């Protein structure tokens, strides 16, 4: 058979294969690397074919694919990775075309996704070098995970043209763009999945969805969780790392604002190479991912199979369910909802409240039964988006009444995810005002109403308001709230309206808190943005006569604060440090806010923010349909 025909048969179109994986630490040292020779051979063959094709068409426009452009060694990779970091300002890079971007770099492409799909220029001995793309960059803890999926040489060529373009940037929808490339390349999607799993493995961050076994509102989340593990009838499972409270998009993440940046925290402890190696060997023996479920793979590795593990009599056992459950049968559901809110209390900006929810499930059922799960009242529930676990046979969408059919996998899983608008009003409403009366002193006022219109069994377990002052040091504060206790840290004031353990059920309460706060003298942190600021730095002689205009403290302060405000990463919603706000965190048990109802429910706060009514606030336009 002709080579060309064989090559065509071997073509990797639409498949996901990985050429190599690297894990680096924050010093750009390669901690782990794995190459897949069979995939690499396919890449070389494709390069050869492309070259022959180009030669045949006498087509010079094709990029010069050095057939020798093999996978770089660890040291080459680490070198070009840190070179890129230097050129692009940070590990991820600028992402969009800025003044510092140069032609022939990722940010020249001018798309934020180039912070995640990067290219590296590998220099070889002849000094010619070649382009390595697409490298999936996933940052997890102190580690950088790079995954190189197999694409076709023509894709690489297309990208190379994008990043060397000489014009002013893609015009949407007409010019060749990165979007069509991404649509053509499922291997990139697969590589992201791989990168995420690897990230979770090396940081020990494998968390199963939570299930509250007991519906009792008294028991904390932890209790119920550990309880459920205790009862667990699935002995065959090797339980991976201890689960932690997963509902934490709320806590540190957003509060820290730009503190979460590219630079991961210093690496602590080594990386479990054996675990990673084993996982990769089983999940993608030849570089093609077959199963990315770490719990399943580690259970098989740890327990193997015994002769008592008999296959099902007449149905095929799914690949994602290597073991069958034996024991007492039951099925548990828990709903977790997270509310995000931007409360402005202003006429011109409407408040925005949205919620995301999870229906977690644990089905301890023998054999391979199909479970039917009726969904009703979808229209009434203001559900915006609804997505299901892959085990669910998805019915037609948009019908008010549906019955989901699913064959449950082992252990806890998220049966469905949804995004909705709450049917109940916001659990915390009111306003927050902060005004600077002098350069270092501010007066503030809270006037809040909690659980307005929330009836039993809805219980607010706790509610805390935090006023973060990311760029100022709190020296002291004054004032007494009408309810609850107040404490302060260096950069925040915390008001515990409802302490945990003293939850309120079925009644609404009012809370006010007027007070003042004193800050330490403002120090400009010139150095922090020197690199950026210098570019735009105005002539020194443009400075204004401060003495004349100090009449307005806030404007003056603002000017002073803005001067050294560092830019945030593109992964942040906005520059948190530029605003005054109070962040609400709470937990409500007993029912869902969306009206979604099965068994156990709990609602907690995501980015639930009261924006200073007297200050600036970020907002977004709301479509008026």
């Amino acid at each position: 058979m002709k080579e060309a025909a064989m090559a065509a048969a071997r073509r990797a179109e639409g498949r996901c294969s990985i050429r190599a994986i690297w894990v680096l630490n924050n010093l750009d040292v390669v901690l782990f690397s794995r190459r897949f020779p069979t995939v690499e051979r396919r890449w070389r063959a494709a390069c050869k074919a492309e070259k022959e094709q180009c030669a045949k068409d006498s087509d010079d426009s094709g990029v010069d694919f050095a057939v020798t452009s093999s996978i770089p060694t660890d040291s080459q990779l680490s070198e070009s990775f840190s070179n890129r970091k230097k050129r692009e300002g940070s590990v991820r890079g600028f992402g969009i075309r800025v003044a510092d971007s140069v032609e022939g770099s990722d940010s020249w492409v001018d798309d934020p996704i180039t912070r995640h799909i990067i290219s590296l220029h590998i220099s070889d001995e002849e000094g010619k070098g070649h382009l390595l793309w697409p490298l999936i960059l996933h940052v997890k803890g102190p580690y950088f995970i790079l995954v190189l999926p197999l694409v076709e040489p023509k894709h690489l060529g297309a990208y190379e043209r994008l990043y060397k373009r000489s014009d002013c940037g893609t015009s949407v929808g007409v010019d060749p763009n990165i979007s069509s490339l991404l649509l053509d390349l499922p291997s990139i999607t697969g590589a992201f999945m791989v990168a995420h799993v690897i990230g979770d493995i090396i940081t020990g961050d494998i968390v199963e969805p939570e299930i509250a076994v007991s519906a009792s509102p008294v028991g904390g989340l932890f209790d119920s969780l550990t309880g459920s593990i205790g009862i667990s009838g699935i002995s065959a499972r090797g339980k991976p790392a201890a689960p932690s409270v997963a509902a934490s998009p709320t806590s540190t993440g957003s509060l820290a604002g730009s503190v979460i940046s590219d630079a991961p925290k210093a690496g602590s402890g080594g990386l479990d190479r054996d675990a990673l190696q084993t996982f990769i060997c089983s999940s993608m023996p030849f570089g093609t991912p077959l199963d990315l479920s770490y719990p399943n793979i580690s259970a098989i590795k740890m327990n193997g199979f015994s002769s008592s593990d008999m296959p099902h009599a007449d149905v095929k056992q799914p690949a994602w369910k290597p073991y069958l459950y034996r024991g007492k049968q039951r099925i548990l559901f828990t709903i977790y909802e997270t509310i995000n809110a931007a409360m402005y209390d202003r006429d011109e900006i409407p408040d925005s409240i949205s919620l995301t929810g999870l229906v977690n499930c644990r089905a301890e059922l023998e054999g391979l039964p199909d479970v039917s799960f009726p969904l009703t009242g979808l229209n009434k529930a203001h559900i915006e988006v609804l997505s299901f676990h892959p085990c669910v046979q998805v019915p037609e969408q948009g019908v008010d009444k549906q019955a989901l059919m699913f064959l449950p996998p082992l252990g806890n899983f998220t049966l469905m995810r949804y995004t909705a608008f709450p049917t109940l009003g916001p659990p915390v409403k009111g306003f927050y005002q902060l005004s600077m009366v002098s350069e270092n002193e501010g007066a503030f006022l809270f006037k809040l109403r909690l659980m307005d219109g929330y009836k039993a069994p809805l219980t607010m377990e706790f509610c805390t308001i935090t006023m973060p002052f990311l760029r100022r040091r709190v020296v002291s504060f004054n004032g007494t709230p009408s309810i609850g206790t107040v404490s302060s840290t260096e950069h925040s004031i915390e008001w515990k309206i409802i302490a945990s353990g003293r939850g309120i059920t079925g009644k609404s309460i009012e809370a006010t808190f007027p007070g003042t706060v004193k800050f330490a003298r403002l120090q400009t942190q010139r150095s922090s943005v020197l690199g950026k600021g210098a570019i735009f730095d105005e002539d020194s002689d443009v400075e204004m006569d401060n003495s004349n205009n100090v009449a307005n403290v806030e404007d003056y302060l603002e000017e002073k604060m803005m001067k050294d405000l560092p830019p945030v990463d593109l992964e942040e919603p906005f520059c948190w440090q530029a605003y005054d706000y109070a962040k609400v965190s709470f937990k409500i048990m007993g029912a869902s806010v969306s009206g979604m109802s099965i068994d156990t429910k709990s609602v907690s706060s995501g980015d639930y923010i009261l924006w200073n009514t007297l200050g600036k606030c970020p907002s977004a336009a709301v479509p008026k349909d």
Partner: protein
Amino acid sequence: MERPPKKNLSSQEWESLMEDFQRGSSGKREKWTSSLPPLSLLDLSLSSLLKKDFPLSLKLHLLVFLDDFADTLFISSPEDSDEVLSKLVIGVEAVIQSPVDGVSVSYALKEQMLVSVTSIFMTVTDFLRVRVRVRVSQLEALVAILLTIVNRPNHGMDRQTRAVTCECLRELEREYPCLLAEVVGHLWGLCQNERTHACQSYLLLLLEVIQHIVACKLNVNSVFSTGVPLVPFNIPQWVKIGGVDEDGDDEVYLKLHLEAELSGSNLKELKRVMAFLLEWPQVLTSCGMMEFMSVVMPLAVALELQPSLLKVQFFGLLYNYDPLLWHVVLMLYSQFPDTFGGQEGEIFRRLMLISKEGQQPLIFRLLVLHWLMGLVELVSKRDVEKRTLIAGMGSSFYPNVYDALALKSVKLDLLVLCSVLVDAAESCDGSSRVSALKYFEDGLVCVSAFKWLPPWSTETAVAFRTIHKFLIGASSHSDDVPSATKVVMASAIFHAIQASLSIRLLSHRFAKPAMEALSGNRNTVTRLRVASWNREPKLVPVVGSLIDRLLLCKMHCCLGENLLQIFDERLLPKVVMNYMLSSYFLIFDKIGKNVTVPPQRLLELLTKYAIFLVEKHGPNTGLKSWCQGTNVLAVCRTMLMHHHSSRLFMGLSRLFAFTSLYFPDVEVRDSARIYLRMLICIPGKKLRHILNLGDKVVGISPSPDTSSFFNVQSPRMSQELKKSRNISSYIHLERAIPLIVKQSWSLALPALGFDAEKYGYIEGTKDSEPQMSGKDSNFDNNIEIIPGIKRIEQPQEPLRVMDSKISEIVDILRMHFSCIPHYRHMSGLKINIPCTLRFQSEPFIRIWCSDPPGRSAEELKAVPTMYAIVLKFSSSAPYGSIPSYRIPFLHGEPFSGESLLPHGSMDIVPVGTPPILTLGSGSLVTIELEPREPVPGIVDVSIDANADNGQVIRGKLQGVAVGIEDMFLKAVRPTEIPEDELPEYYSHLFDALWEACGSSSNTGREMFSLKGGKGFAAIYGTQSVKLLEVPANFAIRVVEQYLADFVVSVIGTSLVEIVKDGGFIKEVTWIDVVSDSSDESKSITVSDGGPLCLTYFDNEDDKYRRANIGKTNMGCFLVLIFLPPRYHLLFRMEVSDVSTLVRIRTDHWPCLAYVDDLLEALFSL
């Protein structure tokens, strides 16, 4: 050469072997491969794998490692490789058959063994296939082993191993298509039977084989036939593994199978298999599903299956939350777009909704939006009408306030897309244009903080990225006709952006929310908003770079120009007249530079501003006035350079006239006057080229943005640049006395390469080190006050015993140092470097006098002259400030040839031609340096002169090299020493310094006050020795010629005799002693042992030395060289018949490096 192969490797050795390979240093790899030939490495590995005490985890690592580096480890000769394959088969068999004990052998090990061996097999055969036809028996054996394992469906314990084995087989099938086609019947049976979780692998394997059968149109007997036994396995004849056959009959089987159509029965059977396979997708993992679909889709095409079946079965995957499954559906759509007719809207909507799912990691939300954009493009390629589906969804892409900026930015892209589509639709049916514009306005709300955040904020970057996208709209870069751009310029959005940017630029204050009203009805702090804080318009630089971005783009430069025009129209009349205006100068400069913008308005504004500056001038605004005035003139200069002067004449002359008359700053007045004269007197073309010539006009800062843009466009400009650049090729400033050493380097000390202030700091530290003892680090800054006081307060610490000899030395040194001026307090010691300035007439005439065509030949032949020449010097070396040198006029060198050559033939400028020195053609120039440190360096020279016709010649000349020998001065003569005692004084001084620079000197802690008593010096000596192997008479000649001035004593009868006669060396101390006398030795060695070291002569070595060398020793020269500002270089040159030993001491150790080169050069002349 070859070392004996290793017998065994320990675990540690294995680990370091793997690490070295992983790291990738070829040297270390070499080390291993040279000691371990492929076969023995393989043997070692296989035996380690079977060892009981070899750690299991290491075995796994080893297997992965062998797989990873198979191409470097096992590929050498074909014979070896053949052997490798055989050994691998044996190895895999052994591992598979060993019982699982969980300690030394586990299922994981077996699985990895299968995977690695399969992979290595393919690597090695891949290598072999290009060389010789490989014997297929090994491959057959391997496949047989694999098939044996697979052939036990539903077996309990090893189900995972069977799954992995299926993968191995699938990988082999992928490599050698149709390898398993003959046994497909067995695979079909196995696949039907298998019910454990391993069934995914069986399904995929079967699918792979089927796909190859279909793709290769291979007619097997029957897909369901099990006629061919599974084991032993024979490679079917159609699989070609070898290379080119010797007899070239690789077409044999092609005739049999290829090009034929699949037979009807085969097709039917294959369809049945497909139907079976399609029954089971729900058992697949999402990765498995992707793999499955990527094979099923081409199969469905080839077997002409109904794509709608696939759609019905798989479309629902889009509603799962697994990104891989979404992509599967999109792949399906791309493959069978017709099948999805009418459902594009649903896909679009679903993707849009997924992007709103907060639970998904950001990257997948971004990806989904990208897919959506890609899909819209794909759809509209087939049916343009369907694009409107997305246009209607515009409002769904409004970013949420908590969306990450990256997500906001991609959503904004989609809004751009929608607005473009809406716009296009409107221009067709002429409906209202509000919505497209609305997308722009609403979209930017989410990053509206760019209006007040610092210009470097990410919000600003995102906002301007979007503005740019809206600006260029649908005008593609691939279009050749800029018609689309014209359309864009007519669009509502473009006008909106123009307006918005103008407003942004004007807004000095925040867009404050109307909060006063709000705060009124709340009982808290109400504040009165007094006059708004006056701010500079922050966005000027950002808008500037947006315009640059457009101007630099071939397609869209007209958009940039248009924006500038709009700013000219709308911004200029509205700007507030205050000092803040200067922040706009970046934009003004761009306006001034652009010919498409009429300059009148800008000129008017600048004039008003100049008036404002004059009016506001007060006692505190001196600097400000100067700076702003300069800025104004800089913009004027830019305009002069880019516009026709007739266009500017009125306005500009008025502005210049006003400025030169009334402006408070004298420099600005001067510059304005010069410009005015230029504007009036010089024709435009010439004026522009003059302005372009000198980058810096005195007192005028160069325009903030020197545009390469303009230069590139104008070929004339580059010529002009060349004109000035080449000056150094025909105007020469050369040293009168060439350097002995062409110093190509200079020792970089901490004191090098910075300004005088810093330099002083280091000097100061040196000076005061002994005194400071960490107490007063400000010493050097306050040097003028403190030393005087300190001298009185501080006793000469520490107390120490001084014998009479030392005190004598110290006395001499005190006297000496007190004569040395300290450059920081008075003018320091200077050195002069005589040079000659000359220029070649021919090139000079050609370049500077060629343009007026009316010149007669005679005029051309006349020797040209430069007038009012000013040479300016500067240097990065620490030479202090170097005074410039003025020459009233200078004639060119007479022509070298008899006649002037025609212009054309002189095109090549003779660079670096040797100087043709002709009397009267050069002028003597003295460069006066005041070194802060005796180091060689380069003095940069720039010339300013007028040509005959008044043109300004300005440029850089070749730098003048300064050598260490230029630093050589005679020691300063104290006034109290009479002339005739001078030789004696110098001799004593030499001895004293020699002593002081000795290694164990007791004067090291002594501070010597310099002239005027304000500075101090201490001596830190260094010594060195240099042996010059030259005959005595030569050495003496060199000393006489080059060092005569610095010789202070000549010692040794024979030497004195020779030298005295020479007459070069005069007025020195002659010491007529026998060369090897004790006196002489003493003076040499005294320093080595210290003054009281009397045992010296007992030293064995020395006796030996004297015995050998003494005979030929003729005597020695003592040379004392003073190095400004206050250092010394001492030579003691012991001359003997065949060599001269130079003992060197100095109190400035860095100079040793240069001295070495110098001596080397001197004595090899």
